């Protein structure tokens, strides 16, 4: 395994946290209640904090003096490795919650495995993050139940969000050839090991929330190979604006 492989692999985890954190940041001040506003901001803060840990590690691994901010803000769209799920827009609160739940459950299982990595930096980040992510999945799972089993309006919106976002779940388990090298070396983890567990868990909760589990056999992928949705360009234009417009400055 080369250092480049490892960096590539870490992007595959960290970019999810960055982009989902960015998406949640858009919502700050616009939530349906103050309490949910604060809770979603908390999740965003946790995710961005984790992003920083991963990027600082990447920054240490690189030899070109890249900082965490270079890594965060100065890559081109095709170099971001987040999954399509996390870049999906904040269509409504049901989308926000379902997107979060689909990600949180995966994220928790991923960190559980990552705690067993040979890479002490990764296990340290995983150890530090897993408790936070446990709260995230509790929060989003509770809200899926509230919305799914709330009013008929909230049920329909939640079912719609689940139907639309379901196609992005499979990609969470995608491993690129480069990722496989890192997995085989014992530094990365193979998400396929908990794929069944994942789908069992979310299906059980969806049923509990009176939501029908979609049966589509078609899934979308591409994000992990840098082939994003058309949303991504707009996320980056906004997120990178300052770094691009005022290069090489300290803030």
């Amino acid at each position: 395994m080369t250092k480049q492989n490892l960096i590539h692999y870490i992007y595959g985890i960290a970019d999810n946290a960055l982009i989902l954190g960015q998406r949640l940041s858009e919502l700050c001040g616009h939530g349906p209640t103050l309490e949910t506003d604060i809770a979603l901001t908390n999740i965003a803060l946790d995710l961005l904090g984790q992003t920083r840990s991963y990027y600082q590690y990447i920054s240490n691994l690189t030899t070109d003096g890249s900082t965490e901010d270079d890594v965060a803000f100065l890559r081109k769209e095709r170099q971001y490795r987040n999954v399509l799920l996390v870049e999906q827009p904040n269509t409504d609160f049901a989308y926000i919650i379902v997107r979060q739940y689909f990600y949180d459950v995966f994220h928790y299982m991923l960190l559980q495995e990552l705690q067993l990595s040979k890479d002490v930096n990764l296990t340290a980040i995983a150890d530090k993050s897993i408790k936070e992510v446990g709260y995230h999945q509790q929060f989003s799972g509770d809200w899926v139940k509230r919305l799914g089993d709330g009013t008929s309006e909230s049920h329909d919106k939640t079912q719609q969000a689940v139907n639309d976002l379901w196609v992005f779940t499979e990609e969470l388990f995608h491993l690129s050839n480069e990722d496989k090298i890192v997995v085989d070396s014992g530094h990365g983890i193979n998400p396929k090991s908990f794929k069944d567990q994942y789908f069992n868990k979310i299906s059980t909760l969806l049923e509990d929330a009176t939501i029908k589990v979609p049966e589509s056999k078609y899934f979308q992928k591409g994000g992990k190979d840098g082939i994003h949705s058309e949303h991504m360009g707009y996320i980056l234009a906004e997120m990178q604006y300052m770094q691009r417009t005022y290069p090489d400055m300290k803030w």
Partner: protein
Amino acid sequence: KNLEEIFEAKIARDEKIEPKDWMPEKYRKTHIRQISQHAHSEIVGMLPEGNWITRAPSLRRKVALLAKVQDEAGHGLYLYSACETLGISREELYEQLHSGKAKYSSIFNYPTLTWADIGAIGWLVDGAAIINQVPLCNTSFGPYARAMVRVCKEESFHQRQGYEIMMTLCNGTQEQKDMAQDALNRWWWPSLMMFGPTDEESTHTAQSMKWKLKRKTNDELRQQFIDQTVPQADILGLKIPDDNLKYNNDTGHYDFGEIDWSEFWQVVKGHGKCNKERLNARKNAWENGKWVREAAMAYADKQHQRKTKQTG
């Protein structure tokens, strides 16, 4: 009559009035007005800074700004809770905000145009807010006083953070320094207006003084802010946009130029640059969230019924 005497005596002894205590209707009304106005200011105040979260120039700044705006949501929450103890619901309070009946601080009707505005808001707007708010930690109404203790502690952290943003810019490139100066130029006068109209124009002051909702006059507080802020600007190497600003050896204070009160009243009356956007943002959040709040209530009811069925 007796009740009112007990009440007055309590205040005079610097004891707190608590929600369960008897209080005059005017005290209740005045407090609902002021605390809710304060709560609304926190909530509306999330918007101008929130405008830069997605564009913050570094991860560290993004996290700090997000946390700061979240703190404001938290302040809103304590203050709404304090206000609710006076027998008004959060829905009613929002309704007053959305209909324009309740006010919020006019400063939040100015747009945030550059990253330096985030620094300037922390430094100047939070700085002014602290000067307005510190005395309220000893105000007579207990829930409000206790909320203010928490609020003030966090605000002073925010102010230092804002000043540090300004400092970083002023130690940066010429472009960054210009950006900082430009932000100071735009936020200076609106910050001075945060202390309200001059004492001659100000109403309610005597009553508010008695209830410890106010300990100094608007003009005194404004002077305190200027005296405190001018040296900070000097350290940054920025020029305060007031050609009449000058230290007065006789008074020991800074003299300053005329405030444009017509602008003040224009913004207060709803015609500032962002009044419409701010109110619309809040109304949209509330209206778009209606189905979510209903779902949460419906679910809670169902859960309750399920439990009572099981146990019953």
